[in-house]
């Protein structure tokens, strides 16, 4: 049996459904991300696991025990809150030691362990600082140390990296993931940043307005999204409307595109999805002819907006050191087999 199980969790605020029929089985040591746009119910889900919000219906089972009705102070989970929620009137050490104190650990030992935990998150020289004298990144790490020092069975992280600058955020992603693998703690991370979810998780739960849109490993999610919401939200994509006009053939505004249509009926409206980086752009006049409307240099790659008979498309091409296409250039697009994903219905 899985370590942590959500059984058809529901949460309503009055008539508003914040989380609908959420079911999930998390293995011991797994890193799960809850990913979705603002207001989709991520924090609500996390708070139900933490015991800070009672579910309207459904069960939460941890290590074989039903904890749905267990109060938060008896769950023993480690939580890093969206706002960090450090205790402003305590030093970093006292913040971290608080959970140990509540567990009856003696003063000398808990100070030792708190300092150890702060060392682990590279805050060894800030043990006596108050939160107000620390930077956002340092506070975030104190919050992490405070959650980890109690050796929780599950670590819950609510957008812990969202207040950091881009560079620090990337560093912390890696550090956090390494730390998590090191101690092997089962972790649920809430984020609206798809890169964060893709780079850190074993599996990702994509949420949309309280519903689970898809649960998959990062690569699967990226390569094989099961609906247009996921394909659009996770990574960038081009969504193209068309009609199935024959076996393995979709008509897009008069342009014929060949794609596997096995699962769909003849004549129905479909949406094609193709990621910008799947295109091969060349001067060789074969494939789909387009005109470059905008070219943006991104360092490692070029981002183009092009126009052709299939409408406006976004294309990224790796930077190979030579000048890219310029506005007004004509080019031809090709794509490998399997780069197109087909979804039922118009978008």
């Amino acid at each position, binding site marked *: 049996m899985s370590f942590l199980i959500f059984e058809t969790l529901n949460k309503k605020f009055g008539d508003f459904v914040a989380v609908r029929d959420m079911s999930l089985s998390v293995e011991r040591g797994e890193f799960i991300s809850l990913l979705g746009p603002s207001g989709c119910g991520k924090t609500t889900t996390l708070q139900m696991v933490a015991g800070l919000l009672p579910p309207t219906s459904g069960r939460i089972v941890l290590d074989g025990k039903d904890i749905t009705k267990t109060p*938060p*102070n008896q769950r*023993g989970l*480690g939580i890093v809150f969206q706002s960090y*929620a450090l*205790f402003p*009137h305590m030093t970093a050490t006292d913040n971290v030691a608080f*959970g140990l104190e509540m567990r009856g650990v003696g003063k000398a030992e808990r100070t030792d362990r708190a300092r150890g935990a702060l060392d682990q998150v590279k805050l060894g020289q800030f043990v006596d600082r108050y939160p*107000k004298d620390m930077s956002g990144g340092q506070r975030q790490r104190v919050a992490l140390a*405070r959650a980890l020092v109690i050796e929780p069975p599950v670590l819950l992280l609510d957008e812990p990296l969202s207040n950091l600058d881009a560079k620090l955020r990337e560093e912390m992603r890696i550090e956090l993931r390494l730390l998590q693998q090191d101690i092997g703690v089962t972790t649920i991370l809430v984020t609206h940043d798809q890169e964060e979810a893709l780079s850190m998780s074993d599996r990702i739960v994509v949420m949309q307005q309280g519903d689970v849109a898809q649960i998959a490993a990062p690569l699967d999610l990226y390569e094989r999204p099961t609906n247009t919401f996921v394909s659009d939200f996770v990574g960038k994509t081009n969504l193209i409307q068309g009609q199935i006009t024959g076996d393995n053939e979709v008509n897009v505004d008069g342009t014929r595109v060949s794609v596997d249509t096995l699962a769909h009926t003849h004549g129905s409206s479909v949406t094609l999805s193709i990621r910008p980086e799947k295109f091969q752009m060349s001067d060789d006049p074969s494939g789909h002819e387009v005109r470059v409307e905008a070219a943006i240099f991104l360092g490692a790659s070029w981002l183009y907006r092009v126009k052709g008979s299939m409408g406006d498309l976004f294309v990224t091409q790796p930077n190979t050191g030579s000048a890219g296409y310029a506005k007004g250039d004509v080019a031809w697009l090709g794509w490998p087999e399997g780069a197109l994903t087909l979804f039922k219905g118009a978008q």
Partner: protein
Amino acid sequence: MMASIQPRKVPYFLTGPGVIFFAALLGAPMVMTLLLSLHSYDFNTGIQPDWTLANYVEVLGDSYFQKIFGRTFGLALLVTVICVLIGVPEAYVLSRLSSRWRSVFLLVVLGPLLISVVVRTLGWALFFGGNGVLTMTAQALGFGDEPVSLMFTFTGMTIALVHVLVPFMVISVWASLQKIDPQSEDAGLSLGASKMTVLRRITLPQAMPGILSGSIIVFALTASAFATPAIIGGRRMKVVATAAYDEYLSTLNWPLGATIAILLLLANIGIIVSYNKLIERRFAKVFE
């Protein structure tokens, strides 16, 4: 065309009217009171044109005045402590109410501030008086026929002043409770603390700045309160403010009244400044 003013001087012009206003209405009477207190007084010829510290020597040395000062600051301390005991839980409960009930109860708590202190105190006088509500209740409950009166007593003054001043404590504590991140309480719970422990170790310490500044307000207002002690305490239970008033208007010894007023001001400033220093030393590290 408007005459142009150098930008550097703009702040002076903008604050000028306020400064003049305060200097005229606050500074001038204070300076005059100070000067007045340095003259001596003769019952036949009135205020003398001399300069002397004799009034200060008299007030500070007279056990009658010492007692009044002692009573005043004792009263201020007691009222402050009771206001903390009542106001802090009140503000806490208020902060826990749903937003609809909160606005109702906030109005209930702050409403009395809209009514004149004199009117509210007269209400207490009716309640405390020899044939007031208190006596009637005591008699109805069979505590004998003796009238129970809290008029002209220390207890009566304390009760009335607490009633008048507790809203200031509530507002002050409420403001600091509002600033607390509710997630810090959740964090306490999730780390294994009971609700009581969270209240004691996490909520209260964060509300401390509000409790301390509320205490300063209540203390200062009690020490210099006039209307309530005048009505409830009267001549028998004088405090510094009513004593000064009596010197001015009954004895007509203005210099002595001025001396008492100046001493009250100095004592109040002294206590509040040192208290503030204490707080700053304790909390500057923690709160911005």
